Structures are given as C-alpha cells and as structure tokens.
C-alpha cells in the first residue's frame, strides 16, 4: 500500500483547497462546538466539586432565637447528619462609603459550608480575636492576613484581626442591595467563631448537613410542628441558595446557547464535509476503475479512499477538541468572574464534544464508503470510463415563453442547477446557515439594545433610586420626598402561583407615576386601572395566566397567600411580576399586608444621604450593571459572528471550488468556442448570486425563530422582543453577498488559467 499512501499524500497536495476545506470543516465544527460548550461544561464540575469539597449545607433554617432545645431537636431529626448554628447579621465595615459585610458568627467547629482558603489559617473556633473575610472584599480593599477590621451592627461593634482570606460556597453570587452587578469593594462577608463575641448571641440560622436529599415540603411541615410558626421563618434548600441558583441558571443559559448555535455550525460543517468528500471521490472515478482493472481488490480500494476522510476529519476534529477549550472559554471568564466567585475557572469537555468529533469522523468515513462503494460496485468496464452526463429533460420553465427571453447566462445556470441539485441545495443551505447565524447574532444585540433603552429610558424615568430603611417614619419620608421632589413606591419580592405553576417575581406598588412609567407590548405608555391587578406579559406567559384568571401571591418573608384576579397586563423587559396601586394592595392584602413605601424615585441626582434612607443608586449605576451583565452575551455574539463569517468563507469557497472543478471542462469548451474570461466569470457569479439570494431570503424568517429561541432562554425574569433593525439586514446582506463576490473573485483567476488543451484531454 506504499504507493497508494503516496498517492494519498499527493492527492492532498494537488487538491489542497478541497482537502483543506474538509479538514477545516471538521476543525471548525468541533472547535466551535467544544469551544463554546466547554465554558459551561467546565463550570459545572468546578462548582459541584467546590460544593462537595467545602461540604456546602444541604439546606438552611432561618428563624428567630433558635435556642438550644430547638437546635437539639433539629439535630435529632432522622435525615439530619450534622447541623451548625450561626448568627448571621448585616454589618457595616469601618471603611469609606460604608461597605456592607454579612457576618456569620459560627457556634463551635465549622462543619458545613467550610471555606475555600486562599491565605492564612483555617477556621478556628477557639480563636477569640480572629475573623475570616472573603477574598473579593480583601482584594477590593487591599486587606491582608494580620490586618484589623471593625464591623458595626445594631449599635454593637466587632473589632478583630484577619486570620484568613477565603471563599465560602454559600456566596458564589452575592450583590449589594439595589444593584445588578456586585461591587466587591462595597459588599462582602466574614466569619468569626462564637467564642469571639462579647455580646449575647441570638442564633438565627442553622446550616444543615443531611444524609439524603431533603424533601422540602415534608421537612417544612416537620419544622413548623417542631418549632411553631413564630420561630420558624424559612427553610431554604441548597438548590435555592441565591448563589447556587443564580450560577446554575447562568450555566443553564450558557448551555442553551452553546447547544443551539454550535449545533448549526456542526450541521453546516458536516453537510459541507459530506458533499466535498463525495465529490472528491466521484472525481476519482476512472482511477478507481483503473485500480480495479489492475487487480486491486475492493477492500484495498475502499481502505485507500476511506483513509482520506478518516485522516482529514480525525486530525481536524482532534485539533478542534484541543484548541476549542483552550481558547474560547477564556473569552468568557473575565465577565463571569466579575459576577461570580468560584475558586477556579476551567473549561471542560463532556461526552457531547467527543460525540461531535466522532460524528465528523464517522460521517466523512461513511460518506467515503458509500461513494466508493457505489463506484466500485459498478462493473469495472463502466468505471474506467467517465460517467455519462446526467440526462435532463426539459422542465416546465423551458416550455414556457419566458424561457426564450432568458439569456444564455441564465439558461446555463438554470440547467446547471438542475443537473447538480445536491450542489445547488448545499450552496443555498451554506449561505442560509451563514446568513442565519450572522443575522441572529446581530439580532440578539439589537434586541438587547432595544430592551436596554426600553427599560432604562422609557420605564425608568428617574435618575436616582433611594432605598428606604424599614423603620423610616412618616415625617422622615415626607422630608425625603420634599427634598428630592420624589415619588414613593413599594417594591417587594413575591411568589406567584397559578394553575400549578409557581414563579418568583417583583411586586411594584405605586400610583400613576412619572418616574416609573408603564408600557404595553408595543412600547407605548399606558395607564393602569388603579383598582386593578396587573401582571407582566412574560409572567403571565410563564404561569399560563390570562386576564380574568385567579392567581395567588405572597410577599417573601410573609407566609400569608393572597388570592387576586388579574385585570390587565403590561410589558416590562426586566423584572417580571405584578403592579397594583397602594389602595388595591391594602384591599387585596387584607389584614396581613399594609402598604409602606420602601423606595423613592426622583429625577434629581442625589448624592447626599438622608435619615431613613439606606442606600442610593443612580440609574447610570443600574444601567452599568446591566451592561456588564450583557457583556457575556456581546462576547458570545462576537464569537458567533466570527465563526459564521469563517464558516461562510469556507463553505462558499468550497462549493465554488466544487462547481468549478466539475465544470472546468465545460468552461474550457466555452473558452474554445470564444467566450471571454469575463463572461465566464459572470456565469459563475450569476450562480453564486442566485444561491446567495435564495439562501439569504430563507434566512430571514429563520433568524426570527432562532432569536426567539435564544432570547427565550435568558430566563423567566427577562422579556425580549424579537427585534431586528433594518441596518442589521443591510449589514448581513453586505457580508453574505460580499463574501459571495469575494469567493467569485478568487475563481476569476482560475478561470483565466483554465488551459483549453489540457482540460479537453481525456485525461484526468
């Protein structure tokens, strides 16, 4: 097989472009797929190992004054392996701009939710002077082991020496109040042993380590009986921990992204690879015949040609598998790191990446097999001859009068497409997929930008948002409203139930407002009925609720569920939930709920602090948070666009090359007959433009569908209109057709070089 091996290498060299494109198709497909998916795939094990290594609590009980008896009772439950009692308090650290630190005062040894230590020593229950603080805050404030830190809360003060810098698995994601994005110099957490407290401890948290998965419903019922309604406030399952849940949602969303888009890449690459491979083999028809005449067995011939596809797709896939995870995930980590705190970020490969690589190899080998087999099964007496051109009958169009008006160029292209249907379909599909990807990528940016101005210009018509203290007095509130010329409103986290679905959301209680404007789905400002209960479109969709339906809701922290009837809907891009007027809220809520303002919105830029106001955020800050949050998406879009363009170039060039190779003889004949290079180039350009146009037109509805799917994956809290700006079509059009013409230019040189004599020889 030495000579056949040599032949293969020379074939690679002589038909570089085709073989490179087979190689590239496998590479790009696997590269895009594993690269994009390895980001989310990698976070999954990193986070679960992190949770496992630190023995994150399986659940938390929050209550008031969890005394020794209660604690002993809970510890004694059959499903509980271990439990750890903590007093968790919100404190303010003695640094500029009063950063918020959540302090955990831990009783005894740290058994659950242990630290991931970066520096210093591990938690020591007997270290009365020690405190452990989180790395993000330490970095943000340039604190180190040995430094002193003072935390204040409820008139008490804790001054301790930092013994260690760490992460806690309970804080994968945390954020200062009223913001979308954490500012780690403004928010943090710390742990200290109970022995270090010089005040009386009121335990309010029990972190649980269970033998098995805790059944939330049963366990809650148990606890209510055990502790009584007054002491028991809440049980939070591990999966509902803010950090765990937010990260998991993020991973899910990324996986959704990395599932759909790269799959399209894989599909396009596979199809192109398959077409090219089968054409390459078809072109070797007479050689296969010669081999047979010489006495090579079918097995040897098969093996020879299978090795083409095998070698190329295998090396392409392997390189893709290696460089994908090494490059693309690192584009996403910075934005992920800005939001989430994990001890490390590492890409990972799961079975799907290998499956895609295997798919590439299997398909290219399989198609080689089928192509060679169909040729070698033919009678060798047939095979040593060139295949007779396919007979084409005159179709409907040729019989109409319009046909006569067609130019030669149009007729030739029509017939060529008809005779090479697969090539035509593949070309159209290639353009379709590329235009689809480019349009969808841009479309997502459009939708996000659109939504940004909707939320932050239209709905948020304020410049500052003041969060009020829980115990602000009426006169203090009046003073704030007067000084700021503001409007008071109430915002609460709620849970809504209907038709067996349950969702968390936001309840906004306000009167008709200038600073918080309500919009409908067409982005028009609307006024809500002050006596009604309005539900956001997306929330209604998620719950399956329509106007007139009954819903149940309750404010987080208040166990009393309220029944209300939905009277109208509104649309908001971010922060789904309910809106009602204070009067309606009081009426609906009955004895259990009373309206009390906790937010003041104002047009003024406020930078001075009022009594009764806990924090102030400007709209710009909120918007900045949004922008950082969507950075990951922007990055995704850039990556996808780049891939789409590379893919488009390779696919179009490749298909162009295929048709060029196949019609080379025809071109040579036409040249002999006196056609100039220019008109031949026009012939190919016409073909390219036809296919591009059809592909592009098909891609438009496709892009709407795809953007819809992608935007739907952003989570139930977001509502994205599917919006593609006109310029997006124009740019996608320019890119698609520009590439098409560019590829055509590449061939115009080849047309000039078509050797009339050589091409007309019977030789291959």
């Amino acid at each position: 097989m030495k000579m056949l091996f040599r032949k293969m290498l020379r074939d690679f060299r002589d038909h570089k472009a085709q073989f490179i494109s087979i190689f590239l198709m496998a590479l790009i497909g696997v590269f895009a797929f594993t690269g994009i998916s390895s980001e989310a795939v990698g976070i999954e094990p990193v986070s679960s190992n992190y949770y496992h290594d630190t023995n994150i609590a399986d659940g938390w009980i929050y209550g008031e004054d969890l005394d020794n008896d209660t604690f002993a009772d809970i510890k004694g439950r059959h499903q509980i392996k271990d439990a750890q009692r903590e007093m968790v308090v919100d404190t303010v650290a003695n640094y500029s701009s009063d950063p918020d630190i959540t302090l955990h005062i831990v009783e005894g040894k740290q058994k659950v939710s242990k630290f991931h230590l970066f520096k210093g020593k591990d938690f020591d229950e007997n270290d009365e002077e020690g405190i452990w603080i989180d790395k993000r805050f330490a970095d943000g404030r340039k604190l180190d082991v040995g430094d002193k830190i003072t935390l204040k809360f409820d008139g008490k003060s804790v001054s301790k020496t930092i013994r260690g810098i760490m992460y806690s698995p309970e804080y994968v994601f945390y954020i200062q109040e009223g913001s979308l994005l954490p500012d780690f110099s403004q928010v943090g957490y710390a742990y200290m042993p109970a022995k270090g407290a010089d005040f009386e401890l009121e335990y309010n948290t029990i972190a649980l380590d269970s033998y098995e998965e805790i059944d939330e419903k049963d366990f809650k019922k148990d606890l209510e009986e055990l502790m009584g309604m007054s002491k028991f406030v809440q049980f939070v399952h591990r999966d509902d921990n803010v950090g765990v849940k937010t990260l998991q949602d993020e991973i899910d969303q990324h996986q959704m992204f990395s599932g759909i888009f790269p799959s399209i890449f894989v599909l396009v690459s596979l199809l192109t690879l398959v077409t090219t491979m089968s054409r390459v083999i078809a072109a070797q028809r007479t050689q296969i015949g010669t081999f047979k005449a010489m006495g090579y067995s079918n097995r040897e011939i098969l093996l020879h040609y299978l090795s083409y596809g095998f070698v190329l797709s295998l090396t392409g896939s392997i390189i893709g598998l290696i460089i994908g995870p090494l490059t693309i995930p690192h584009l996403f980590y910075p934005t992920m790191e800005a939001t989430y705190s994990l001890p490390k970020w590492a890409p990972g490969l799961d079975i799907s990446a290998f499956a895609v690589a295997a798919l590439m190899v299997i398909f290219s080998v399989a198609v080689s097999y089928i192509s060679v087999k169909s040729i070698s099964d033919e009678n060798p007496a047939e095979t040593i001859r060139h295949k007779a051109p396919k007979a084409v009958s005159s179709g409907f169009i040729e019989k109409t009068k319009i046909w006569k008006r067609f130019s030669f160029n149009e007729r030739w292209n029509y017939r060529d497409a008809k005779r090479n249907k697969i090539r035509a379909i593949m070309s159209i599909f290639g353009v379709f997929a590329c235009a689809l990807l480019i349009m969808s990528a841009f479309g997502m940016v459009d939708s996000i930008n659109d939504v940004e101005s909707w939320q932050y210009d239209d709905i948020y018509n304020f410049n500052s948002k003041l969060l009020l203290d829980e115990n602000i007095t009426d006169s203090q509130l009046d003073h704030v409203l007067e000084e700021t010329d503001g409007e008071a409103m109430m915002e609460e986290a709620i849970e809504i139930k209907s038709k067996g679905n349950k969702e968390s959301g936001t309840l906004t209680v306000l009167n008709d407002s200038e600073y918080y404007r309500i919009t409908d789905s067409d982005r028009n400002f609307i006024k809500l009925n002050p006596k009604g209960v309005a539900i956001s479109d997306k929330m209604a969709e998620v719950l399956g609720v329509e106007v007139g339906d009954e819903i149940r809701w309750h404010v987080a922290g208040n166990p009393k569920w309220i029944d209300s009837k939905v009277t109208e809907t509104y649309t908001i891009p971010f922060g789904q939930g309910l809106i009602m007027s204070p009067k309606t809220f009081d009426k609906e809520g009955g004895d259990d709920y009373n309206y009390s303002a906790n937010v003041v919105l104002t047009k003024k830029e406020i930078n001075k602090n009022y009594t009764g106001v806990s924090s102030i955020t400007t709209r710009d800050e909120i918007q900045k948070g949004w922008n950082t949050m969507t950075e990951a998406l922007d990055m995704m879009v850039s990556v996808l666009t780049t891939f789409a363009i590379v893919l488009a170039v390779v696919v179009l060039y490749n298909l162009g090359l295929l048709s060029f190779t196949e019609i080379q003889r025809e071109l040579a004949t036409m040249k002999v007959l006196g056609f100039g290079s220019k008109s031949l180039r026009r012939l190919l350009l016409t073909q390219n433009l036809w296919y591009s146009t059809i592909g592009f037109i098909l891609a438009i509805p496709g892009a709407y569908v795809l953007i819809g799917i992608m935007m739907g994956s952003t989570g139930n809290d977001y509502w994205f209109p599917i919006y593609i700006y006109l310029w997006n079509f124009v740019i996608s059009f320019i890119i698609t057709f520009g590439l098409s013409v560019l590829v055509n230019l590449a061939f115009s040189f080849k047309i000039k070089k078509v050797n009339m004599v050589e091409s007309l020889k019977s030789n291959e």
Partner: protein
Amino acid sequence: MTTMIEFENVYKIYKIGEHELRALDNISLKIDKGEFVVILGPSGAGKSTFLNLLGGLDTASCGKIVVDGQDIVNYNDDELTKYRAKSVGFIFQFYNLIPNLTAKENVEMMQDITGIDVDGNRVLDSVGLTGHGNQFPAQLSGGEQQRVSIARALEKEPAMLLCDEPTGALDSNTGVLILSLLQNMCHEKDTTVVIVTHNSNLAEAADKLIRIKNGKIEEITINENPKDVKEIEW
C-alpha cells in the same frame, strides 16, 4: 501450441427497456498461448465488450470463457479480482495512469498487488523510458505515457496483455513504436497479446486476426507469416 483462451457460445446482452442489445452474439473462438491477436471491427461492433469480458472487467450473460483451463464466467467478484491481478495486464487507449504518481511509482505500485519487490527503473528501461522515472504523467508525451502503462502491465508478468485501442490517441510514428514494443514482448516473453483496434493496417502483423461485426465473428484468419510491425506501410 497450447490453447490459452477459449470462448464458447458467449453472449453479452444489454436490456434497454423492452429492447435487447446483443453486444456479443454467440461468440466462439480460441486463442493460443503466445499469440499476437488483433481484433478488428467498426465502432460499436463489440470489440471492447469482448476485451472487457476476457479481462474480467465485465461478466458474460451466458456461455463459457475458459482461460488456462478455468471458466471465468462464473467467477465471483473476489475471484475476478484475483484473476485480474494475476493473469491480466491492461493497456488503455488513454493510458489511465495515476496522475499524481511518477512514472516509476506507477510501475512500482504493482508490488502492492503481486507482493514482489519491483525495480521500476529497470522495467522502464525495458520499454525505452530510461531517465523518465521521476516524471509525472502530465510531464510525459502520449507515447511515453503509453509506454509507462505497458511497463506497468508487464511488470506483473501476466499471461496476457489486453490492449484497447492502445494507439488510438497517438500519432502514427509513436503508434508504431508502441505496437512494435507489444509485438516484441509477445514474441520474447511468450505473452499472449490481444489488441483491439479499428486500424486495419495492423492486420498484417497479427498471428491471428479476428474480425467482429454487430457482435458476431465475421472472420478468423491465421496469418502464417505475420509481418514485423515496423515493416508495415502505415
């Protein structure tokens, strides 16, 4: 002289819709070992079909084709492959060289099939192509390419050489050189050579001349004193 090839009532029938096309219509003939056989006939007479059946590139519809005492008509694919590899050397009108192997490599590739080490240059020398071993087919003239193809066929020392219009694509001078090469091989190595052609001049050089027309044998002539190819007036 021993009989090498025997056709007995061989038919090759193509069905085109309801019509039957008899490409070979009851062919019976004998070819002896070491004979230089020329098959003459107009286009479409069935010459190539005859050669394809003999070479195991195609199978007969019915009849017997006995080569070296074996009936190849009932051979399966594997047996046909072995038969082609061992007994048959093909020479095509358009040479059918592997374009991206050099002349030497085209010859040496036969060692894949025979398993015997081959010195390509030596074989090329014997067909008068000394020094052309490292050239690719496209760098060679038609006659040179055909000589490579003969070298390739001869390399495995087949019992017979089957040539389909071997000079069809060559000018007459080059054609004479090729034919004379074939004739020499035939006489020196006792290889049976069957040449299909429509060039009747070659008739004078044949030991046995078979004329085919409309799939039937029109005439078989034994030439007692065949001329040397080079002596024929072309």
